[in-house]
């Protein structure tokens, strides 16, 4: 697939502290990429700001649709939409005035702009909010209005810093539905504090750790490569070590553990349980538990001591 964004050895320092260290990778066109990072998320915000064009990398180069982010800045600006974490609209203008003012500086066909504006105003249920002065609106409504501002220009790349921050459940759901409907139509890069939402909405997840990308894949592959999709816990009346040694040798079993009379193991397929069961003749099972792993479990397993979750 063609690259939408390409990082070449990009490093960034903030107050002498490295927040991004030598990033080299590409993001495919029209893909959806979620990013997760350390508790101190300055690296994530900076990563999004660099793509959006608010910061220039201290080292390395960034290419947007093959164009150098610094040398071809004005062309690139027309391709990107950026929804910051906090609203950045002028408090003394109405939302619509804000949107019209900012969008007037972009090279966008006016007819198309109006069309898109109307479409997304309806989609985000913002008809009653657009003519209210920004200082009188709630942070959740402003977040939706910022998204409306950016989407109405029909960008090729949409960068979102916590797209549903400050929103109530209804608005959050509405926004995620809209973003889902845009999947495969534009490149989306976003950060979110909701791991459940990330799990459901991505083509790829980038996990940042100490300024570097530590994990880079979709959730299915990440689980498969690291901890498996399922965890099985079997409790016995009496669980002896020779039996555990036999079970340990079964192919496709991940991280088998014996804790007194309990067997715990992971696997990518539930059928592994049936293969384990064939070895369990003559023993008494008191309980069986099957747990499907989620993103949170993967992060907990990998970073629990280092503060990501």
């Amino acid at each position, binding site marked *: 697939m063609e690259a939408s964004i390409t990082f070449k050895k990009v490093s960034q320092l903030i107050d002498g502290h490295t927040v991004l260290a030598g990033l080299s990778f590409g993001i495919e066109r029209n893909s959806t990429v979620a990013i997760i990072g350390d508790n101190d998320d300055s690296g994530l915000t900076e990563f999004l700001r660099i793509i959006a064009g*608010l910061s220039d990398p201290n080292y390395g180069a960034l290419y947007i649709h093959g164009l150098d982010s610094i040398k071809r800045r004005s062309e690139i*600006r027309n391709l990107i939409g950026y929804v910051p974490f906090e609203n*950045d609209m002028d*408090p003394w203008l*109405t939302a619509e005035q804000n949107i019209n*003012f900012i969008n*007037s*500086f972009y090279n966008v066909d006016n007819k198309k702009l109006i069309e898109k504006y109307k479409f997304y105003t309806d989609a985000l249920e913002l008809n009653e909010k657009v003519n209210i002065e920004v200082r009188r609106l709630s942070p959740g409504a402003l977040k939706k209005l910022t998204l409306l501002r950016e989407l109405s220009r029909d960008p090729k790349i949409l960068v979102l810093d916590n797209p549903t921050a400050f929103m109530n459940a209804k608005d959050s759901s509405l926004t995620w539905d809209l973003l889902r409907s845009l999947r495969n139509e534009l490149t989306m890069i976003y950060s979110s504090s909701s791991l459940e939402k990330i799990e459901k909405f991505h083509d790829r997840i980038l996990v940042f750790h100490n300024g570097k990308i530590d994990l880079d894949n979709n959730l299915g592959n990440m689980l498969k490569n690291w901890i498996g999709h399922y965890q099985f816990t079997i409790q016995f009346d009496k669980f002896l070590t020779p039996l555990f040694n036999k079970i340990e040798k079964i192919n496709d079993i991940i991280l088998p553990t014996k804790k007194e009379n309990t067997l715990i193991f992971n696997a990518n397929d539930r059928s592994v349980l049936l293969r384990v069961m064939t070895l369990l003749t003559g023993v008494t099972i008191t309980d069986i538990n099957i747990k499907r792993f989620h993103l949170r479990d993967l992060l907990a397993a990998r970073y629990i001591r280092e503060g990501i979750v």
Partner: protein
Amino acid sequence: MISALLIRRFWIIKNRLFTTLGLLLILPIFLNVVINLPFKRLVVNPLWNIPHEQWIYPGLTIIAVIMMMIPSVYRDLFDLRIHKKLLPSLALTPMSKSLYLYYFLITVLIETIVYTALVMAVYSVLIAPGFSLLDYLIMFPFFILFIALSANILITLSLVVDKTTLYNLLMLIFFLFIVFASGTVIEFEYFPEIIGNIFRYLPTGQIMQSLRMAMFSGVVNWLIFFSALVTIILWTYLNGLLFKKRLTK
């Protein structure tokens, strides 16, 4: 693009129409009461035998217009900047940042010219200086020069200072400077010689002196006029660079 900025100014005024109109009417009256009326009684022997009403008219107009201009610059370049509103999204547009600042200055000047005309009309009634149409026409370019210079001072302060308390203090000093040290309402002859000379040779003092010279003796000092114009252009250029730097920071 300048049309977008003009429309935005129109929206801002429209959204606070009564406040703006109220201020536009009350401010000249207030300044007349607190500056013109006491000065009229204070200055018993006016210098150069020019009637007090005629002498104070341009200075008082300039003070009123600059006071009207302060909120615009404060709001757009200081308040929005320190609260990270509007300017970050503006920084992401394809438009040149320096160009934005130049357009901003032009927009402020256009808005201020409208205020100037209104304030001049109010003072023509309140002070009744008895000027001819030619006098008003002579005054106008000097007013624009003085306002453009003041706007550049305000823009620099708004872009350099990051603390509200310091900004407010500097605004107060700027206001006192305009009222007392730029020749708007107090002639430089009233100051001790050295201080008076310093104020006289500052661009603000030069413009005020040239304005009065043009009005009361009919002589236009083109050297001072164009020097002020060049100063304003250079200062605007530097402000453009400063604005660009502050936005990319």
